[in-house]
Each structure stands twice: as C-alpha cells, then as structure tokens.
C-alpha cells in the first residue's frame, strides 16, 4: 500500500470520506440515496465521519416502492431520528394510483415505474445536481466500469462510451444546466470489505441480515418471505417457517432469502467467505437478460 501507515480498510475509509467531502464542496444540491441496506448503512456511517462535528450537509433520499420489508421502514426512521439527518421519502404517485405491484406487473415493469421513474421524479423535484449512491464495482460487470463521479445527461441517462477520464483523485465535478452526477464513494470496496468494516465499526443493520425463523415460500428455488397480507399465493401455496437471512434488502416479493443459521456478524462473514454464489443472485431484476443492468443504467436506474 502506497501510504504505508494505514490498513486496507483505513485507506478505503479515507478515500470514501474524501469523495463525500468533494461532493459537499462542489455541488449546490447534493442528495444521498438511502436504501437502508448494508451498503447504505456503511455510506451513512462514512458521511457522519466525513462531516463530523457538522451534521451531514445534505438530505438522504429513500425511494419507497411501498413494497419494502416493514422492518426496513422502521429501521430507516429510527436511524433518521438517532443521527438527525434530513430524510426525504418519495413514492411514485402515478404508480400508487395505478396500484403498481410486483405481482401484476412483473419485476421489470414494477422496477421501472416504482424505482427508476420514481427516482427520476424525486431527483427532478429536488433539482439535485449530485446523487450519492452505495454501488460497488465488484457487484456487477457494468458497474466495474463506472466512474466514481459518473456523469448523467439531462434525462439522467448514462453514456458508457463517453465517460469522463478520471485520474488520480482529481474529480471533474463540472456540469452543464440540467445535467447531474451520480457519485459512488464506496466504488473500490468489495462485499467482504463492507462486512469487515461493519464488524470493526459496529455499524447497526436491519435484523433481516441475520438468520431467524421467517415465513417463506419457495418459488423455483428462490425463497420469498411473506412480509404482509398483500402477498399473492399461488394455488395451494402455504408459507413455511424456515431459518433464513437476506444478503441484500429490497422489495420483499423480489428479494430472495437464503437458508442460513448465521445469526451474528462473524457467522455471516464466515459463511460469506465460504459461499459460492454472487450477491446479486438474490436480486431478481438482474437476471432478466444479459446486459440488463447496463440497459437499466442507461435509462436512469441507479
């Protein structure tokens, strides 16, 4: 390591803090995406560190599809109260009116309306010129090529062939009217880095990450938790109690649980080290087609 004195995690932390400060110093209306998951929790922790003793100088935005696990919403509100950040929650009013849901519309259409379009609405309404997200380059192939400061045109679209060169830590934060930036402070972290950081810093997470007996149904190998009475059962389907946990959090009907007894952070980390499937496999939206994430990003998905 070039710095010599810092450990791997310390230098990742410092790099992320520097990126967060650059956003606060360079943009007029930044916002931080808050999805309540582990990456968001790390991001929140880093933002508190970056600006201490000041409060986080920008709001946190949660795009609420109304299909999140109930516990996520409770956790979100408790964090906002505990750390005193400004929380903006946005739901696509059109989707709400048309009762868009993952059962009738399918994952792709549901995600487009309740996430991608909702995000666009919220970003436009707030006139945010920079939106900070918790994506990592190790998550998915198209993310591996994204810049830390990733330019979006006035339609929030990403042009992968025309990305700005990004050298050293000199970030080009300049925008033309209507354009915006997506900023990814934990680009260089791996999933293992995130977990070890959560462990060493004692960062709070929703208990959904920890194994517990939960009511689930098995949909062609994917375990879906029945979180509320809006769940649509297939004919003859009955939820079973199983000891499961989640590797990623999102909309409960679209997020697969894994069978696991890992109920503590060390157990999760050990299990993850031994695991042979990638993190996003639990997310149903990525497997629609080859290049589906890249396509979604060009359309404005985070």
């Amino acid at each position, binding site marked *: 390591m070039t710095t010599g004195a810092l450990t791997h995690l310390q*230098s990742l932390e410092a790099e992320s803090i520097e990126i967060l400060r650059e956003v606060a110093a360079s943009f007029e209306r930044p916002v931080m995406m808050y999805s309540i998951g582990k990456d968001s929790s790390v991001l929140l922790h880093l933002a508190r560190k970056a600006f201490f003793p000041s409060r986080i100088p920008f709001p946190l935005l949660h795009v609420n599809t109304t299909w999140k696990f109930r516990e996520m919403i409770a956790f979100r509100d408790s964090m906002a109260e505990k750390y005193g950040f400004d929380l903006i929650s946005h739901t696509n009013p059109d989707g709400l009116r048309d009762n868009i849901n993952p059962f009738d519309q399918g994952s792709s259409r549901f995600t487009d309306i309740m996430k991608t379009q909702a995000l666009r609405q919220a970003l436009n309404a707030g006139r945010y010129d920079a939106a900070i997200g918790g994506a990592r380059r190790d998550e*998915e192939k198209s993310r591996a*090529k994204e810049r830390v400061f990733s330019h979006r045109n006035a339609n929030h679209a990403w042009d992968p062939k025309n990305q*700005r060169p990004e050298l050293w830590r000199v970030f080009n934060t300049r925008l*033309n009217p209507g354009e915006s930036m997506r900023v990814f402070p934990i680009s260089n972290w791996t999933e293992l880095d995130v977990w070890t950081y959560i462990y060493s810093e004692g960062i709070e997470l929703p208990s959904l990450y920890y194994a517990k007996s939960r009511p689930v149904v098995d949909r062609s190998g994917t375990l879906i938790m029945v979180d509320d009475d809006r769940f649509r059962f297939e004919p003859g389907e009955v939820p079973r109690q199983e000891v499961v946990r989640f590797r990623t959090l999102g909309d409960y009907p679209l997020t697969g649980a894994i069978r696991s007894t890992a109920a503590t952070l060390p157990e999760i980390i050990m299990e993850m080290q031994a695991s042979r499937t990638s993190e996003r496999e639990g997310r149903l939206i990525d497997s629609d087609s080859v290049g589906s994430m890249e396509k979604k990003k060009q359309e404005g998905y985070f």
Partner: protein
Amino acid sequence: MSLPMATPDTDIDLWLKQQTDKSLLRFLTCGSVDDGKSTLIGRLLYDSQLILDDQLASLRKESHNRITGDEGIDFSLLVDGLTAEREQGITIDVAYRFFSTDKRKFIVADTPGHEQYTRNMATGASNADLALVLIDARKGVLTQTRRHSFILSLIGVKHVVLVVNKIDLVDYDQAVFDRIVAEYRAFAEPLGFKTLAAVPVSALRGDNILAPSVHTPWYDGTALVPYLESIDVSEDRTAEKFRFPVQWVNRPDLDFRGFSGTVASGSIAVGDDVLIASSRQPAAVRRIVTMDGDLDRAVAGQAVTLVVDREVDISRGDVLSRPGETPEFSNQFQARLIWMNEESAFPGRSYLLKVGSQLVPATITDLKFRTNVNTLEHTAATKIDLNEVATVTIATDKPIAFDPYAANALTGGFILVDRLSNATLGAGTIEFGLRRAQNLTYQSFDVNRDVRARMKGQAARIVWFTGLSGSGKSSIANLLEKRLTAEGRHAYILDGDNVRHGLNKDLGFTEAARVENIRRVAEVARLMADAGLIVLVSFISPFEKERRLAREIAGDIDFTEVYVDTPLAVCEARDPKGLYKRARAGEIKNFTGIDSPFEPPQAPELVLHGGEQEPVTLADALHDWLKL
C-alpha cells in the same frame, strides 16, 4: 451455535485482523488488442476462486463457440462487461476487478488496448502501483506496447511486469521469450522503471500463473501470482513533506471552525506550525478532529479535520504545509500533457485546470514539443491531438500551490476541463514552476476571436433575424438574449432602436440608404462577434441581396439567418407602433409589405412561424436549434 463452513479452530477476530492487515496492490493490465488481457484477469479471478457458482454456470453457457481452455471457459467474458464490448469483442473502457490471496488484496484496472481508448489506460495507470504489460508471444513488441509503456512512465508507475502471453502458441520457445524481453528492456531503459520483471505465461492454459509451468523448464523466475504477492511497492509517503489540500471548511456553529481534507503526504501533529500557501500566513495546529476522537498526529492518506490556533483566512483550495517546506506558488509552470479529447489542444485556448481542490482558468501559453510515443523523439507542433503527449507551459489566471509531479502526484497531477462542454480534455503532470517575470510568453499566441469567446465560455456567432415589421423578431431576440444572459452567456441585440438613433441616424429610407444601413449593421455585428459575443441582429432586411451582403461581411463567423415568417395580415393587426396604419394612410413611404416588397429568404437556416406560436416558444425552439 455453530459457525457454518468455518474450520473448528477459526478465531473470527484473528481472521478479521488478518483480512484488514493484508496489504493492497493496485495494478493495471495494458497491452495491444488481442494480447489476452481480459483472459489473464479472468484467469486470475478463476484461479483465486473468485468465480462463483452462478457466474460459472452462466459463463459456461456464454462460452459456447468461443476459444476456451481446459476448463471450457472463455475467461475474457468475465471482464468484458459492457454490451458494446461484447459485440465488438474488444475492451473499450477501464474496468476494475477485485481479488485476493492469502497474502494480499488486489485491485486490477483492466485497461483498453485499442488505440483510441489510450486515455482510459492513463486513467487506470494514475491509481496503480504496478503494471502488467502484456505481449502476444507471436507478435512481439508493438506500437501499442511502446505507447502504453511510455504513458506508464509519464504517469509515474514505477513497477512493471512484462507478461509474454500465449507462450503455448510458440511451443514454449525460450528463444522467442528472450528476444522479446531483450527488445523491451532496450526500449524501456530510458523510461526509468524501478523494477522490471518478465514472465512467460499462457493465460488460457494457466502456465506460470499460480506456479511454475512444466512446459517452461528454462524459466527460473517466479510465477506471476507469487511475484505479485511478494513485490514491495511501498513508498513511505509519511516521510515526505507535509501537504494538506483543504477540501471543505467544517463550520457546524460559531464555536467551531475546522478544515477538512486528506493528508496528501507527510504527517502533522498537534502543536506543529503550518503555513497557508496562498497567503503565507502562519498558524499552529490546535486539534486534529475525527468522529472517533481527536488524534495526536495525522499521516499521509488520513482524512481528518484540522483546527488551528488563530483566526486565519483558509478556504477550499488552500494548501497547508510546514514553514520552510512550502509548495511552489506560481501562475506559470511547465508540464507534460496527455490529450484525451477528439478536439485538439491549441496554445492560447482557455481551459479550467483542477489540481487537488483548486480550480482555476488556465491557458496553454507555449507548446514546446510533442513526444513521439513510439520513438520518444521530440517534434515541433502547433496543436495536440487525441492520445498525443506534449510538453507545454501553462499560465493560470491566479497563482496556485503545486509540487513537481515527480515529488508528489497528488499535488502535481492535474486535469484540463472544457469551459463549454465541461468534458475532461486532458491530464497533465507538472514538471516545474516558472517565475512570472522571466517566462511570460503571452506573445507566443494571438489573442483572437476564439480566445475571446472562450474566455466568455461560449462560441462567437451572429444570428440574423429577418421578417416584416411586427412579425415578432425583436420579441424573440429579446427573450433569447434574456435566456442566454441567465445562462451566463454574453449576447447583444442590434436592432433599429439602438442603431437608427445613433450610428445610422444620418441615413434615411431610400434604397441606397437601406443598403448602407445593413452594411453598417453587418460590420458592427462582425466586430462584436470578433470580440467574442453572441450577436442577435433584428432587422427587417427585406432584400435577399442585403442579407447575402451581411453574410459575406460575417466571413468565417458562424452566421444563422432566421426568417420570422408571420403573415402580413397578422403583423398589420398587431401593428405595435402604429406604423402600418400610417403607411396605409400614406404618411410613410416605402414601407415594407405595403408599398415596398419583402423578398422571403430562399435558404434561411431556420424559419419561425410567428403567427402560429408564442414568442417564448419560438425563442426556446431557436435556443435548442442553435445548441448554445
């Protein structure tokens, strides 16, 4: 409670400590197209068991009909992420990959070999400690190999491993390997790499990747991965001069004022004296604040907030150092530039320069020479094209704090940004500062229209509105001017009101006078555009001949003829100044549309229908069309 998959004696704390204590090696892979970079990285990921079951399954599916190793996998599919790349079969953008072994964590920048994407290679190199330079054993050292190696030295990558790939395709022939290595060493000698190793490998077959291959008994060096695990690339940045670029002023309330930033080099302790580069004001460090508690000392790489012992003016962009070890503070320096944009660089152009957290307007004042990246020869040049490297002098609008890049990459590396599009145009490394009095070379470029317009952040042009009286020309021009002004552009309207009453008040309405009227207005428009302005001319200009004259006078200035086509009946009904009424009554002679003709333009750049849409809609449409 059981620990699934864990060995019985696993102590999680010990294991986690081992994880966090691992050192990190950031390296990049470069080389020519088809040298097998993606395959090599895929191989490294596969061999370090980072390919997971679901990825492996989808990979086997996609590897059908492709060249594969014994594992039945086309490893390049793992890293060629973007659909465009899959279709073209080349890597067009830098991708970052992560893997780790028991000894080290690795971040790999997979950088493109295709010539037009060389800028991405420089990007990957800027954050790398080491580079793998790939060579196809069948092809040897190529132009791209030389180009990339030169860029490595320019960016200051100190450690290089020459990976001679596809050694299986030359029957593991030692002579081929030795010849390539000798040729490369001869070329790379002046590039000043600290270490240069060479390994014969087959990324596809796995030879000399994890362990020495049985196929190359003549090779007595280490296999690639063990070499990467053990090479020492550390540089003690803590021992260097203290540099602290202030990123953000931390001011939660009136009682606290701190300066947040990352220590770029060196170290600082509570009680130490510091000096502000711009104002030369001294102060002492009173606190080093972090959320985990105050520190006694901060070292290179740490992100902290400094509080000083007195009221001094410090803002974003300032650099703190120790007294007696200050960075250079100047508005002129010599640098090497890598150009990364299709639009060439010219001396005299104004750009935005960002170094650390300082952002200032800057001009290339002198292009000393271009460096031929294949032969390293210097050649004279008047511009720098995409992917070219040149040595230049740069003048900034105000002095900035910096160090030579060789001494400190974080305070000596900069980017140039386009003032109009905000694209990143190039990257540079500062060689040394120049003293203002001795080296001002402003005479080496002409102050011309382009230079003046760029200072205003725009391109100069003339927009010529023609149409009947009352057609809406002036309303549209006024709305456009307002919008441009709101956007920070510099525009000016020439119309009957401000010209007829002054410059042209000696002219009447005879045909000769009207021609002279137009000629003078066209000349004034040209002068204003030459001064860098966006000139909006709103004149009835009824005759094709006059409009052609105006266009000829404009010469090489961008000239847009906008015909505001509003029916006479509509104009007459509007009659904002009562002129039509007076013309109909015979009080005004030669009135266009009544007793003097209007020749509709034959080929205007744009027609706006003033009778059909509101002026504001038309002004917006025009704004969009002009792409200002």
